[in-house]
């Protein structure tokens, strides 16, 4: 039976955009597998009125000035904006993969079996030592965004 290693949750605001949150933990013994459950909400920013100035500002920042007005008229093409948080994992010997994808609810497994290890992660042993799970907060647009992270391990 898997047992819990980390169970955390947190609240983010737009100020947390472009930050990393790392949870570091020590495995006393090698495990047969590591499982990660991760979720965050909300995914979409469904406040049209509050989104408009954010989209217009991005267009102003990034569009060629010659086309900015045209893009601004079509600002709703970029609605709704979304939060994006991604996970990556480091074993005691280094990088073990990441899950750069948009789903706001994810479950991952890391083990020696390549067919059972989740896409994005590198299959292999789960040795004892210091591991890290990093939440990369690419963007929070909603006034707040809550996440939950649960890491569990199965003994050999």
């Amino acid at each position, binding site marked *: 039976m898997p047992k819990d290693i980390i169970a955390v949750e947190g609240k983010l605001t737009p100020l947390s*955009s*472009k930050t*990393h949150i790392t949870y570091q933990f020590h495995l006393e013994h090698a495990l047969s597998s590591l499982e990660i459950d991760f979720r965050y909400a909300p995914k979409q920013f469904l406040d049209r009125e509050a989104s408009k100035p*954010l*989209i217009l500002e*991005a*267009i102003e*920042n*990034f*569009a*060629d000035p010659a*086309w900015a007005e045209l893009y601004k008229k079509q600002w709703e093409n*970029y609605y709704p*904006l*979304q939060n*994006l948080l*991604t996970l*990556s994992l480091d074993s005691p010997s280094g*990088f073990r*993969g*990441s*899950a*750069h*994808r*948009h789903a706001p609810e994810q479950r991952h497994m890391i083990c020696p079996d*390549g067919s059972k*290890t989740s*896409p*994005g*992660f*590198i*299959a292999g042993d789960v040795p004892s030592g210091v591991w890290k799970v*990093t939440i*990369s907060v*690419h*963007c929070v*647009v909603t006034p707040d965004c809550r996440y939950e992270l649960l890491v569990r391990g199965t003994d050999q």
Partner: protein
Amino acid sequence: MRWLPFELHTHTPHSDGTHSLLEMCRVAAELGLEGIALTDHNTVSGLADAEAVSRQTGIAIIPGMEWTTFYGHMLTLGAPYCEWRDLGPDDIHKGIARVHEQGGIVGIAHPYSFGSPICTGCHWDYTVSDWNQIDYMEVWHETMPSMKNHNVPAFRQWTELLNQGYRISATAGRDWHRSDPADPLAAYTYIGLPDAPLPHSLTDLIAAIRQGRLCLSMGPLLEVSLNLGADQYGLGSVVPLPVREAHPEAELTVKITGSPRPERPWGAEGGSLIIIDSNLGELAKVPAIEYDGLPIPLTTAGLRWLRVRLFGTINGILTTIACTNAVYFANEQQHEE
């Protein structure tokens, strides 16, 4: 030299793509490609299948990754995973050095895509203090790239950097996430490789991209030879200053070979023009049908670089059908690598 069409920017479910590496490579073969670069966002786990998929489909797979960071997306080719999470917006050269130390090369992906919060980190915001460290720029992004607005400033920036004396390669990249037969066509990046038996080594592929033996194209291959007296120079090569000075007149030949793919019918016909761009502006603009494979006379004074474009009509729209990387001319102000 043998020119092979590649797709240099792809994703699978190891990041946010929906087609497996095997599915993608099967479709790549149907599209006429000889190879791809697997550039999943922030991971290299998809490469575990690369050898088997390559054997099964005949598609060469260049190991890569797309650094999908807060301040820009950077493609890496030929290097294992290199760390990016500790880098701030002024630290990109530290990251580039990590890739170079591992034998890889780096390219700025879609530098002028809209950034956060529309597309997180998609606009290039890193401070580049030494453009010599940037191996290539993805100046053609997505399908039908010559018609995409966000590629216009990328192409312009590449041209400006060439004008400043930097030798930077340019690539096309579909940013391929799913295999949908209804998708419009993407461009090929033809890579010029030594006439060696297949498969080509990763070292050869990386060297060719770094050097700029590349032609971006919706179909036809442009093979370029610059002749100064008895000497010939191809894409990515550098004409030494004494050679240029000894030859104020030169001849450029552009051989246009249409794609065998029926969905890519464009070539020398149909009123297409061969345009020779340079740091001095357009050196020549001639009907492709009349000059295909024949010498186009040039004067070499003041040249720092030139490249060839095939300009014509795709689906009724006048656009660049194909564009080569540069042939360079050494001069006293050059930025040495």
